[in-house]
């Protein structure tokens, strides 16, 4: 895909981000559902929710793409699937890092500490390390052709951490807030304005993920072409 054809997507992402910021800071009310000594427990800082949760969801989506393309690669040994898997893993790692850092800021404001060895936080960190390991393995492999099947297996096995991360707050005792949209109760546990803003930001983050993935896949194809030329 040429750079020119990506421009509309770039403009849509930028406009979506601006509209999202307007919704987050001008429309959605400050969360004051819990009062402690007359002060809102969450208050303003709860607005991190609208970027923290979409980052985590997009990371899940990225790892799902890694899973599907790794299975497709192992079935057909087509390098296009391998390029898609590694590209999606890289973008997923970036979104997981954003999730961890934004969560740490939220935690510091509410819990008074950046980090707790809570099941959700620990498992998210392990998920991050699994895919950093996947990328490190690919980067260190001397023969990319032989590394591809092994990294596909890592991509498939590593996906087991995704449902574990998501449902860790339900399955284990955790101080992290429980899932409010995809949860055992079925229906979303959020007021309409918060849910609309969250869904809007989720769409914008998904578009940003798509944009990054297209650019990264194009780079992967370029790398593949160079490797083929160098091998010839």
């Amino acid at each position: 895909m040429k750079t020119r054809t990506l421009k509309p997507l770039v403009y849509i992402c930028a406009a979506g981000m601006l509209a999202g910021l307007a919704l987050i800071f001008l429309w959605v009310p400050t969360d004051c559902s819990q009062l402690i000594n007359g002060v809102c427990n969450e208050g303003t800082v709860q607005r991190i929710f609208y970027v923290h949760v979409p980052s985590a969801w997009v990371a899940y989506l990225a790892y799902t793409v890694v899973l599907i393309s790794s299975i497709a690669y192992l079935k057909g040994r087509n390098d296009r699937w391998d390029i898609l898997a590694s590209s999606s893993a890289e973008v997923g790692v970036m979104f997981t890092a954003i999730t961890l850092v934004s969560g740490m800021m939220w935690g510091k404001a509410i819990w008074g500490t950046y980090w707790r060895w809570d099941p959700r936080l620990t498992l998210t960190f392990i998920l991050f390390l699994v895919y950093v390991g996947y990328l490190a393995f690919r980067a260190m492999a001397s023969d990319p052709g032989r590394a591809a099947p092994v990294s596909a297996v890592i991509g498939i096995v590593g996906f087991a951490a995704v449902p574990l991360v998501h449902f860790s707050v339900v399955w284990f005792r955790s101080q992290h807030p429980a899932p409010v949209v995809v949860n055992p109760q079925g229906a979303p546990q959020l007021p309409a304005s918060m849910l609309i803003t969250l869904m809007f930001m989720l769409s914008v983050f998904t578009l940003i993920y798509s944009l990054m993935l297209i650019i990264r896949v194009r780079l992967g194809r370029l790398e593949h072409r160079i490797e083929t030329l160098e091998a010839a």
Partner: protein
Amino acid sequence: MSGHELLAAMARSPEAIERTKLIFLGIGFASVWSGMVVYLVSLANRQKRLERRLAALDPTTKSD
């Protein structure tokens, strides 16, 4: 109330708590946008480097 206790009480005042929350909200949002921008810039740099390598290897080949 000692000076130390007064400072501690001031630090826990609703205004101070709200100010702290605002600071962490700002850092949280900045980390999200800066993470994305840094990644996009690194992708652009990698693309330029690869295109130069490809041009050196095969001047007749065009990138995607």
